[in-house]
């Protein structure tokens, strides 16, 4: 064998992209944790939204009527953590087992690996998120409509808010993928994710106007703005909040793209 006859014919970029996606898709679907995560991401929002709606259906007398879209948002709590951890694990399990070296030896273009992992987990969490969002919306409205507190999907602003609920899972999972690639350790990655998502909410508690001014840049407040029937006036408008929500995973994934190629595997 000589050096020249072993060189393969050029492989077009779409084919290479398909190869890496197929590889990552196989990895994602061949471990049990993916299915457990999806189970949690589907079951807990449905249960919680029904429970919260039941509580909302009997509000204390004299209080303002509750936001009928709030149960759908609140119920995502465990689902968000589950898909966030799934995102983190995408890279950290490979780094902790050493499998990452097999992966990078097979695909030396590491950003392609990052993109493929983000794409398969993104697709899975986006589809799951939207299905769950619309299912828990339907469930919560079924409970609320008994007390005439529900809203219809045909009401302006409602479809967008429900779509945004589904988007939250995607956003958090993508942030997890990026953090996993940067931190490389599971515990550290999860801590970073929780820190990034939850710790900034302390800012919201700051006295006005600081609370609102800083709070509108947090994932949770941006998500809340997008999913509320009546968005708060002291925060960003929904369109800007959507930008804030998408900026978090975008920035983290960009940082990951830089870190992943600079460091030794």
């Amino acid at each position, binding site marked *: *064998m000589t*050096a020249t006859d*072993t*060189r*393969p014919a*050029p*492989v077009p970029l779409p*084919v*290479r992209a398909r*190869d*890496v996606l*197929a*590889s*990552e898709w*196989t*990895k994602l679907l*061949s*471990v*049990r*944790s993916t299915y457990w995560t999806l189970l949690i991401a589907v079951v807990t929002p449905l249960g919680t939204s029904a429970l919260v709606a039941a509580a909302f259906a009997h509000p204390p007398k004299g209080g303002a009527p509750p936001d009928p879209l709030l149960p759908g948002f609140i119920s995502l709590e465990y689902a968000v953590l589950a898909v966030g951890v799934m995102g983190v694990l995408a890279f950290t*399990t*490979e780094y902790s*087992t*050493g*499998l990452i*070296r*097999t*992966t*990078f*030896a*097979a*695909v*030396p*273009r590491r950003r392609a690996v990052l993109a493929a992992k983000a794409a398969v987990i993104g697709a899975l969490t986006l589809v799951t998120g939207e299905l769950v969002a619309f299912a828990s919306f339907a469930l919560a409205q079924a409970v609320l409509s008994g007390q005439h507190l529900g809203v219809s999907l045909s009401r302006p602003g409602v479809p967008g808010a429900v779509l945004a609920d589904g988007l939250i899972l995607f956003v958090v999972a993508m942030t997890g993928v990026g953090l996993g690639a940067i931190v490389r350790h599971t515990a550290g990655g999860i801590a970073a994710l929780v820190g990034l998502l939850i710790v900034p909410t302390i800012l919201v508690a700051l006295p006005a106007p600081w609370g609102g001014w800083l709070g509108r840049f947090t994932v949770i407040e941006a998500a809340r703005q997008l999913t509320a029937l009546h968005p708060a006036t002291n925060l960003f408008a929904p369109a800007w909040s959507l930008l804030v929500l998408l900026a978090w995973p975008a920035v983290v994934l960009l940082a990951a793209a830089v870190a992943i190629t600079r460091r*030794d*595997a």
Partner: protein
Amino acid sequence: MIEVDRLVKRFGPVTAVDGLTFTVRPGHVTGFLGPNGAGKTTTMRVILGLDAPTSGTARVNGQGYRELVRPLRQVGALLDATALHPGRTAEAHLVSVARSNGIGRPRVAEMLQLTGLEPVANRRLRGFSLGMKQRLGIAAALLGDPPILMFDEPVNGLDTEGIAWIRQFMRALAAEGRTVLVSSHLMSEMAQTADRLIVIGRGRLIADTTTAQLIESSTRKNVLVRSPRAAELAGLITARGATVTPEDDGALAVTGLDAPAIGDLAAEHGIAVHALIPRTPSLEDAYLDLTGESTDFRAASPSPEEVPAR
């Protein structure tokens, strides 16, 4: 063909590879030898594009690894057989690796059969023994039918049967005209597998030679001489410029003069010689001579691992 040229790799203050240059050619099993910590694994990682060199280059078939498209079709490597996701099945692992380089399922099935893993293909890897993981690693390395293969300490922790299987396998791969680079810290292991040897210590090249030449060049090559007039004979030998080391039982170990010369010398002076035995050092001895000064972490007394049974 693997070409490493003036390769340097530093990790902070530690220089793991220090100006290493060598070429690994097809058709042979080339042993990559050195004490633990000599820089073998680091060199292999740089060849695979996993670690970026501080300076110098490593090329496979004339190209940098990171420039390769579908690299598994050109280089197959087994660095750490235990680097697996415990929850994945053997087949799923191989399929995920294969797909990344556009390799289909029939080839995966073929490799499972070749490595004898077919019966356990659908078992999760958490239950695999080290031997089974080594076989899986070899199956993964061969997926792309690559002309270049690299194995890092492939027999570590294997039983006798597993070692024999891997040895035979590597020789067969080289006989097919492939480039095979196998690292080990055990000379005894390489003696039975490798035709060529690249010996490194503290990140530097110590020898790039054939197994036979390495033995030939060892300083331990000597002649054992027994004589009733040993002291007298020793004086004569030393006068000829050779070195004489007395052994415990009164025999002489002579370096620098071969057996016929010693015999003739004794005969000239009428000295009876009772034994005249040319001694070839074991490959292990030759290796220890070479690497003795380059061992990073030397134990006060050699551990069993460092001095394997011959």
